[in-house]
């Protein structure tokens, strides 16, 4: 069935999180919010009931995947992002315009799968936890709620036309939190050729003979290299608008920056 159960929470529902530590921590008996409390905020979406409009979601399939991920990764382990992002993007197959409605992501985080939010993030204070349930700003990694963060970064990094593995770059991007934070919290990561070029240059693939991580097959350079390369790339962006260049040209420029940074760090 088309878009079964995909709904949105209207604004104001964030009040339900206020001082609601027992829910955010998932204490016994408080795993879900009371239906009486949430029902005033639940709204239906036009597009899921309209066969003419694209946009579809399979929430049962998503739940199954999330439960599997929950059982395979320890609570708080950021490595689950690589798989969770693919699961969310695949099972909520809606357009960018539809996805720009935060209410959809708030509903998934607060009402439908709050257990997954708690499994992904360890509780580190009320304000920090509220951001994992409710989007507080445009920064995709640090200010967006759990499901909004996963869906959008997957959307930006997936390669729709790659039949072999459309989510290779998504999984690689999520393999290091530092990379996601540096690139997708700011506008730089939204120009897809720049996002791909950054992954291409900063992620080292392993040779076939080596025993690699099945999911991503390789790893990012060290955090201090990531930080410095991205900082210099940002500085160059003020004088060189990224949109003026294609992916190959950005990769060349980034490759040069990486070599310089590594040489300088080796000298220190």
């Amino acid at each position, binding site marked *: 069935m088309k878009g079964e159960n995909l709904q949105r929470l*209207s*604004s104001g529902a964030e009040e339900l999180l206020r001082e609601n530590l027992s829910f955010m921590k998932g204490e016994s008996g408080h795993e879900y919010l009371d239906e009486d409390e949430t029902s005033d905020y639940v709204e239906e979406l036009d597009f899921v009931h309209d066969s003419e409009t*694209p946009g579809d979601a399979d929430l049962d399939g998503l739940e199954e995947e999330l439960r599997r991920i929950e059982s395979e990764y320890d609570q708080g382990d950021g490595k689950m992002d690589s798989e969770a992002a693919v699961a969310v993007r695949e099972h909520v197959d809606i*357009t*960018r*315009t*539809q*996805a*720009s*409605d*935060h*209410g959809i992501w*708030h509903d998934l985080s607060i009402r439908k799968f709050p257990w997954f939010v708690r499994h992904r993030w360890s509780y580190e204070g009320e*304000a920090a936890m509220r951001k994992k349930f409710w*989007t*507080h*700003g*445009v*920064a*995709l990694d*640090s*200010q967006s709620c759990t499901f909004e963060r996963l869906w*959008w970064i997957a*959307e*930006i990094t997936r390669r729709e036309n790659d039949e072999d593995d459309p989510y290779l770059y998504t999984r690689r991007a999520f393999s290091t939190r530092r990379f996601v934070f540096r690139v997708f919290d*700011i*506008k*730089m990561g*939204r*120009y*897809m050729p720049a996002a791909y070029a950054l992954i291409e240059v900063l992620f080292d693939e392993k040779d076939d003979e080596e025993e690699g991580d099945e999911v991503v097959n390789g790893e990012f350079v060290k955090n201090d290299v990531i930080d410095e390369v991205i900082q210099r790339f*940002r*500085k*160059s*962006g*003020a*004088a*060189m*608008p*990224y*949109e*003026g*260049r294609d992916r190959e*040209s950005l990769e060349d*420029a980034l490759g040069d920056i990486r070599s310089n940074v590594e040489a300088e760090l080796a000298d220190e």
Partner: protein
Amino acid sequence: MTPQLRLNRSLTHEAFPHACRPGELDFEVVEYSLDGESPVEPETDGRVDLKDYEGWDAASLKVKVNVSEDVLDAVFPEDTDYPGRILVAGHCRATYLRDRTILSSSPVDPGSHSDEVELKVDAVGGVVELHPYLIRAETVSPVADYGVDEGVMLADGREWTVEVTEDDAGGKNNLTVDRTSFEEKHEEDEDTRFPSKDEMYYLDLERDSANPVLWFNEDHREIVNLIWAGESDYDNLTANLAWNHALTDVWTRMITIAAIEFDAEDSEWTPEWHAGVMDEASQHLFPEQNPSARKAAQFLQEELREGGHVTATKRIESAVQEILDPASGFLDHVDRIGGE
């Protein structure tokens, strides 16, 4: 190098050590058409309004960039066959989209260059910003005072905005509004950053400078009740006044901080709320120049730095009043009291 900022002249600034002509490309959206229907000219200069149209799939905008011989001559060391690229970059904040359309590629001739920018209804929402650039298309060996690397910006022009749908008001605000008891904060922690219990509100930039929070003090129970749960029209009018009063300070502080912390050499705003504040305030701060948010931040920073404190703070005062319109709020309130 001394900054070459002149508010009444063309805008060259210190971020570009090479020959560069910011603001000197003429850029316009000539006409637009939806799903291949007959084209329409924009009613307002600088803005295309698609909000009233329904049921379309793709909008095609005919864009035109005009570049003069004078500009080309000034920014390229070459005398002819200028190795440049003219493009229009499009940003849509709601759908995290950045893309571009190339109008002309090496060599770039003086005169006007046109192409179609296509917006698909599935991929955009809210507002799309269009920004024209002239960049260098190939790297050559250094020539003094010229940008010689591929990709370097040589000129740009004024932005146009395309309004696709009403901007979503919820979720991505620049400011979170919340309430708490300041007195309790002091009881919990005597070194708290919260001000005294007598104060009415506090713009909190200390907890997380990237995510400002406006706190209302619950020790003033009636004010908080008015703002969160006013019931009558009179309550709402009064709540408006309280709200306006707090926001006057908030806007003033946020504009000032965004200007002082602006870094012209960084392509990103850090934190991003600075961009939101300057987007809103730029036209009110400099109504005659109507600069981009980045340029407005830079002008104001220069003015504050170079001793223009009176002019700069007057500018901020006026901008904040234009944004909030406190006079109308008070007049409505007076009218209402008079009518009781």
